[in-house]
């Protein structure tokens, strides 16, 4: 029973990983790529770690506990890294895709960025 659940979780997780990477290849600009990649790969990796925990549940609790630690770490850091990259991309002057409908961040003059133009 737990083998079936684990195998299904593993398969779904890897399919999400594939979808995220495919989104990174197909979507048109860096912000959309971040959207697809961050969400899908984060959930995919968490599902794979969970599947490993379920599949080895009979052998040792150590794998499950370390997997849980890893999941918590990834869920906290991955959106933060995505936010930092999006902000960095906007500050470095990457334009939104031409099909975009609004850019309130640029319209407000990037508040909080506090860049002084030196050179």
């Amino acid at each position, binding site marked *: 029973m737990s083998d079936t659940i684990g195998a299904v979780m593993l398969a779904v997780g890897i399919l999400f990983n594939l979808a995220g990477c495919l989104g990174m290849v197909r979507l048109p600009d860096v912000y959309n790529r971040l959207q697809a990649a961050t969400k899908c790969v984060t959930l995919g990796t968490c599902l794979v770690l969970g599947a490993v925990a379920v599949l080895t549940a009979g052998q040792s609790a150590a794998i499950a506990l370390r997997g849980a630690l890893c999941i918590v*770490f990834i869920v*906290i850091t991955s959106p933060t890294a995505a936010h*930092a990259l999006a902000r960095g991309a906007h500050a470095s002057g990457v334009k939104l895709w031409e099909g975009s409908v609004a850019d309130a961040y640029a319209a407000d003059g990037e508040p909080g960025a506090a860049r002084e133009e030196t050179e």
Partner: protein
Amino acid sequence: MNDPHAKEGMSLIVKTVTRWLKGFLLLYGAYIVLYGHLTPGGGFAGGVIVACAFILVFLACGAGIGHRTLGRLAASELDSAGALIFTAVGALGIALGGVFFRNFIRTPPEAHFRLLSSGVIPVCNIAIGLKVGTSLFMVLAILSAVHVAVKGGRRRMVRRREDKS
């Protein structure tokens, strides 16, 4: 003291996540160093993670708070302490066993695969972890504060703040 809205460093979100995580990064580095003789890792790998904890603070909050967490003087002294401990272990090997780095701490066979085992290896790991952790942090701090400039036909490393030309 801990003002997340200061202009220095990166955005509010990165600063807050750094505040949440840095203690655990340091703890994890210490774990990798202390269990280097039982699991993958060891002095260098754990030292890199310890350095990462300080580097994350340095990147997210700026150099001021980064150096308040681990100052330049403390870093260089810990660096030297690591090197001295490592050499002292080797020298004690000569003094007690006649060979450089001779294992002079005997552990009984029933202690194998426990934390307190494998002789002088954990001591060496701790020394290497100290050395690598602090000196990698200093590498980043120094390289971010200086740059290469041409002065009088020669290339020199100069401090960025003093180089207004």
